[in-house]
């Protein structure tokens, strides 16, 4: 008997895409069966193939979630986006107050007075990543019906807000980097939450 275990991480992430029960069960069942069929003969390659297949089926599971979305669920997902955004804003404001306080004590100026160096831009991007991860984590935590789509919705709303507030105000390269960092951070936060809850049981 081979010791290679089924790629449960991929399975949990696919389940978190919120596809309908029948569709999700059929797809995940097929992936598990294919993995079991190949495990003996292919060894570690079976797991790699399973991960590759998981990436291929993800858009279909997301499409199924979207297809089964009903108007009455709009309120649910809106409240998920709103609550996780408020949480991220509270975190952002708290961080801003803390950093401003430290800067005022040590340098006699706040964030607005710091010259726009590459280091400063890097720190701002890191800040965005922290905000995004937190928003994504909270969205996946409270949007249990579809954790990863909830995370994607939060990311979409934040992209809109960032483009609206940053367009023409900051250099376009920085805006693009900031938006990319936000999306990556949000998705990372959602993924961490899904994997944590899977490990917890």
């Amino acid at each position: 008997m081979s010791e290679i275990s089924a790629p449960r991480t991929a399975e949990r992430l696919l389940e978190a895409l919120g596809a309908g029960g029948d569709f999700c069960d059929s797809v995940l069942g097929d992936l598990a069966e294919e993995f079991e069929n190949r495990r003996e003969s292919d060894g570690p390659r079976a797991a790699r193939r399973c991960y590759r297949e998981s990436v291929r089926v993800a858009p279909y599971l997301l499409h199924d979630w979207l297809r089964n979305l009903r108007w009455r669920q709009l309120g649910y997902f809106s409240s998920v986006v709103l609550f996780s955004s408020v949480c991220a804003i509270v975190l952002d404001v708290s961080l801003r107050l803390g950093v401003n306080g430290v800067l005022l004590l040590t340098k006699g100026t706040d964030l607005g007075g710091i010259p726009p160096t590459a280091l400063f831009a890097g720190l701002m991007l890191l800040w965005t990543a922290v905000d995004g991860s937190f928003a994504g984590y909270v969205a996946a935590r409270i949007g249990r019906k579809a954790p990863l789509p909830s995370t994607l919705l939060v990311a979409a709303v934040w992209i809109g807000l960032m483009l609206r507030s940053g367009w023409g105000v900051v250099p376009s390269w920085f805006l693009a980097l900031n938006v990319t960092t936000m999306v990556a951070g949000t998705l990372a936060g959602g993924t961490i939450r899904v994997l944590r809850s899977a490990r917890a049981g």
Partner: protein
Amino acid sequence: MAATNLGMLELTVLLAVARLSGEAYGLAIRRDLAARTGRDYSVGAIYTTLDRLEAKGFVRSRRTAPVAKRGGRSRREFEVTGAGARAIRRAERTARGVWAGVGNVVNPETP
């Protein structure tokens, strides 16, 4: 009539379901299509197509008992309905009509 039209992938999957009578589920259909067309379809694409075919009334599905090697999940097996069989015959007639007379052009040496 638009709802009863068959796309290329829909027809290909419907034919696989007909061929695999009684054993038609995502993975088996995928293997069958890979062997016949050389294309490795994603099971997601196959189930999406099967759902469309079921909505059009060309196939019906039933759940089997849970299978251990599927992580305790059951299989969803498909079979062609009467409407599906009629759609296959119609598609075959249409294909014959469309292909008629093409042989002389693509194989000019053929007597």
